């Protein structure tokens, strides 16, 4: 590998492939089943004769393990080892309470890893896991989120925002406001549920180079896994190799390693040099791999008679786990969405004996904008204003929180174009005005926003090959979004060659360092770095390089300056139908218009935006992780009881975008698109259901019972 990376400030590329509908470069492998996912690696990849690891999880929410009787499990056919907190290899660093498993007898939540079984087959491992007898000293636990219990003030909220904000005099403004909305909005616990469960293949080798842990992991960040695990395992980061060639979705839950990766590493160390495969079951995912906390939002909006906001207050009550803090930044988008001279936000947590919450698609924005945008609909109603007009009247000239200029705030154009394309005009002003057959029909809308990030810590390598071809390498991960495809397009345009002249390598810590596929930052961060490397390569080696010419580069403009507010925006429109006798809710139409910078590939981008809309629809109507506080765990812990939208629910769903290029943000002109589709969508559906029925639902999901007077 080249020595130190070149620092190069990327300049806007001349687009040729970018903006066109290049087919997914890995489509054939995927549809023919040749794409190997995390536990589909064998001898060909250095994982010959892998054992299967099965997790044993706690059946109490709090207490101490007093004994683990492994006799029956160990005697079971095919079982090689049973590990518990007394026998598992020791970790060098146990500071992370979620990850430091099998090190002590403490049980912090129901579903925590308390033992694991290693066996020759999955069947043996699973059965033996059920034979492990764990005894506990049970302690009283707390697992119920209430506003009263949410008293803990975190030092910051995810990832590093101020916990509270207070500008002007909210109370005085509310006292003088002509119109006030003062309501509580709730969102439930939600689980990411990517199609591929979290899974890892691991082998721990000792050879001439010392010890090496080699992982194939279903992750959104190979370098993130290595940098987290290495110090815990007493290894240098370059002793941990992580590959993620194909990943079946993550939605944030694979953004950071969870306990099962540590379990796989400990298991591999114990049976070294035999490899180990560990796949988390769907039920175990509900305790072990992150989720979105439930939120309670106390919203107060004050406005003058014309609907101009004078005060916005958003107080959030949510929960985290005692064993590891995660504070969802629910009120953070409220700080920038609309203009109001007086604004106050806060976040308070109930610290409970529950599984550890984490990132789920648009953490913060999803629940926070839901609360804010339903409140805005209520304000429009109170002011007798069209909901679109209300948003237009409250456009801020600059970022209200920082006073920084907007780089490219085009929310009004999204609103206008969305209204026109959806057919918003002519909508009855009154709710409960349209009955078609046995269905009340209504329409609703909401704004969407998501910050634009370019992460630091990226490097890319460009190497000239024979015959005018180029190898382009970066340790990015394609989690199913199409990253391989769009990075190929970006590399080709930056090198000014065809996409078929680019051999893109991703998904391996042996490649240059890359940031997480998260925060809607992947394409912009990795793409800018690839452009920097390609441009530096051309500067150094010209247009006709010899084979082997190589440049490793970083984008010198990372991180971007903080004197400009970079955000994407959107407007979501929904039609809802509510059955007048059964209360059933259906959404026949859902439409979003987005301003996301230049779209690199219309096919994959459309999938991301529509996928976000569908996930927002799913959250609006169905998704709820029901925690039974008596036991402490989520009892709707499979896809038969945790409902996500099925085909019949997804009717006419479409997304469009404004033609634009944000050259100040990235050399491709692109911002991020992974998360904004879920933002505001549930609010649009709830607002449409209100318009249909006159019933205002302030908690998700908006199920049939809300419309039957029985709740």
């Amino acid at each position, binding site marked *: 590998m080249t020595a130190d990376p070149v620092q190069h400030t990327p300049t806007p590329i001349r687009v040729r492939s970018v903006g066109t509908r290049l087919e997914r470069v890995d489509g054939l492998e995927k549809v023919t089943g040749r794409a190997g996912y995390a536990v589909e690696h064998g001898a060909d990849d250095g994982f010959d004769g892998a054992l299967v690891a099965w997790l044993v999880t706690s*059946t109490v929410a709090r207490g101490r393990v007093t004994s683990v009787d492994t006799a029956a499990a160990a005697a079971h*056919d*095919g079982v090689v080892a049973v590990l518990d907190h007394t026998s598992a290899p020791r970790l060098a660093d146990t500071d992370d309470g979620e990850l430091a498993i099998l090190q002590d007898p403490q049980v912090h939540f129901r579903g925590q890893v308390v033992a694991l079984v290693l066996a020759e*087959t999955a*069947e*043996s491992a*699973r*059965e033996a896991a*059920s034979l492990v007898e764990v005894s506990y000293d049970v302690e009283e636990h707390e697992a119920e989120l209430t506003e009263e219990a949410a008293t803990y003030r975190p030092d910051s909220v995810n990832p590093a925002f101020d916990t509270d904000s207070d500008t002007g005099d909210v109370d005085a403004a509310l006292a003088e406001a002509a119109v006030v909305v003062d309501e509580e909005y709730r969102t439930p616990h939600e689980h990411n549920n990517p199609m591929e469960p979290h899974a890892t293949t691991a082998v721990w080798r000792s050879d001439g180079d010392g010890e090496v842990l080699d992982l194939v992991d279903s992750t959104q960040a190979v370098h993130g896994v290595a940098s987290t695990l290495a110090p815990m395992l007493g290894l240098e980061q370059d002793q941990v190799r992580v590959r993620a060639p194909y990943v079946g979705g993550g939605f944030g839950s694979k953004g950071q390693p969870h306990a099962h990766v540590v379990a796989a590493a400990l298991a591999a160390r114990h049976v070294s040099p035999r490899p180990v495969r560990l796949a988390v079951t769907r039920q175990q995912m509900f305790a072990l791999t992150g989720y979105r906390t439930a939120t309670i939002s106390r919203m107060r909006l004050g406005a003058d008679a014309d609907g101009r906001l004078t005060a916005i207050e958003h107080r959030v009550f949510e929960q985290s786990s005692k064993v590891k803090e995660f504070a969802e930044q629910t009120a953070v988008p409220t700080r920038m969405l609309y203009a109001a001279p007086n604004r106050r936000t806060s976040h308070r947590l109930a610290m409970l004996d529950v599984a550890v919450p984490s990132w789920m698609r648009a953490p913060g924005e999803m629940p926070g904008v839901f609360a804010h945008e339903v409140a805005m609909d209520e304000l429009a109603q109170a002011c007798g204003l069209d909901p679109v007009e209300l948003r237009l009247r409250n456009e801020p000239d600059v970022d209200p929180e920082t006073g920084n200029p907007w780089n490219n705030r085009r929310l009004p154009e999204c609103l206008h174009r969305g209204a026109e394309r959806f057919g918003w005009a002519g909508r009855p002003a009154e709710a409960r005005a349209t009955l078609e057959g*046995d269905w009340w029909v209504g329409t609703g809308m909401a704004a969407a926003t998501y910050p634009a990030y370019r992460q630091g810590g990226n490097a890319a390598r460009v190497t000239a090959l024979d015959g005018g071809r180029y190898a382009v390498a970066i340790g990015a991960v394609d989690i199913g979004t199409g990253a391989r495809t769009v990075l190929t397009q970006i590399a080709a345009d930056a090198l000014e060659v065809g996409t078929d002249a680019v051999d893109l390598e991703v998904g391996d810590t042996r490649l240059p360092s890359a940031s997480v596929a998260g925060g809607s930052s992947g394409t912009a961060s990795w793409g800018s770095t690839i452009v920097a490397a390609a441009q530096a390569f051309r500067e150094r080696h010209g247009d006709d390089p010899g084979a082997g010419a190589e440049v490793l580069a970083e984008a010198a403009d990372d991180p971007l300056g903080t004197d400009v507010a970079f955000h994407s925006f959107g407007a979501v429109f929904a039609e809802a139908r509510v*059955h*007048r*006798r*059964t*209360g*059933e*809710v*259906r959404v026949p139409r859902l439409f979003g218009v987005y301003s996301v910078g230049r779209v690199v590939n219309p096919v994959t981008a459309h999938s991301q935006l529509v996928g976000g809309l569908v996930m927002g629809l799913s959250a609006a*109507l*169905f998704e709820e992780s*029901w925690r*039974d506080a*008596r*036991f402490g*765990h989520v*009892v*709707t*812990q*499979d896809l*038969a*009881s945790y*409902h996500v*939208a*099925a*085909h*019949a*629910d997804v009717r006419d769903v479409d997304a469009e975008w404004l033609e634009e290029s944000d050259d100040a943000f990235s050399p491709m002109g692109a911002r991020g698109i992974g998360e904004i589709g879920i933002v505001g969508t549930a609010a649009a559906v709830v607002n449409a259901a209100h318009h249909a029925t006159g019933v205002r639902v302030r908690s998700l*999901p908006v*199920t*049939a*019972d809300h419309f*039957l*007077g*029985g*709740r």
Partner: protein
Amino acid sequence: MRAAEYVRASSAEEAVGLVAGNPDAAFLGGGTNLVDHLKLGVARPDLLVDVRRLPFGGVEQQDGPDGPVLRIGAGVPNSDLAADPVVRGRLPVLARALLAGASGQIRHQATTGGNLLQRTRCVYFQDVTTPCNKREPGSGCSAAGGYGRYNAILGASETCVATHPSDLAVALAALDAVVVTLGTDGERRVPMADLHRLPEDAPERDTTLAHGELVTAVEVPLTDVARRSTYTKVRDRASYAFALVSVAAALDLDGDTVREVRLAWGGVAHKPWRARRAEEALTGAVLDEAGIEAAVAAELSDAVTDDQTAYKVPMLTGATVQTLLDLAAEETA
């Protein structure tokens, strides 16, 4: 691996003998429910007797003592039964109930007999780390006071508030079907109303069948009233979900007046709930919304609800009104 012996039975008698002679044996049909239970640890049989290849495949009209019946082999897949021309033409409630259930893939795999004998989807029944009287008698009921959205409102007991999940069973209850079984004592005919039971103090028993008693066929009377019949399934998700409540109904009108009505409900009890009190209230009366609401209220006078199930009363009322008015409109059309 937990070893279980697998036997592909060559005759019904052999299958019955094998299962009846072993308390830890189970029949295996389509496996769409039992295989889940094997994975979850809910069922731990040591002998699986595959009845899929037994000659229980046909759907045929027969003359019974009380008129023509449709005899449906217990092994007929749900998808085949829903597509059968006689079922579609003369027993529309049956076809619609089947098509409202599960997914295309599951309907293709699931059998008629197995559908009737599927077990509750109560989340606690399926979670072996929580108490459940149905799974482990005497351990307690976690659903009472827990996740209750799908709980029963009729006929529940202190020991169990689970609901039966089958759509097909609700339709068959409305149609006065008879289940034909083979046991160690030979063939038996069980009216649908007597097949499933209320939990009382033995919720571990879903049905009145003995261990080892095999469903071989279902006989459905081909009555005139069944020609005008339908099924309404209410659920949050538009497909691939169990009923919050469901209504199977058949209606014969004389002008505006009800000559005959059949009404059965799903999602409300440990068994398909034949609403005989409501049927009585409706029969001979003019069919209108107020009358239907009063009839449903009469049937639900014993209903017990809580915060999580209270919605089922208005939902069931609305669904029953909708179903019967739709059938009436069909008749006059």
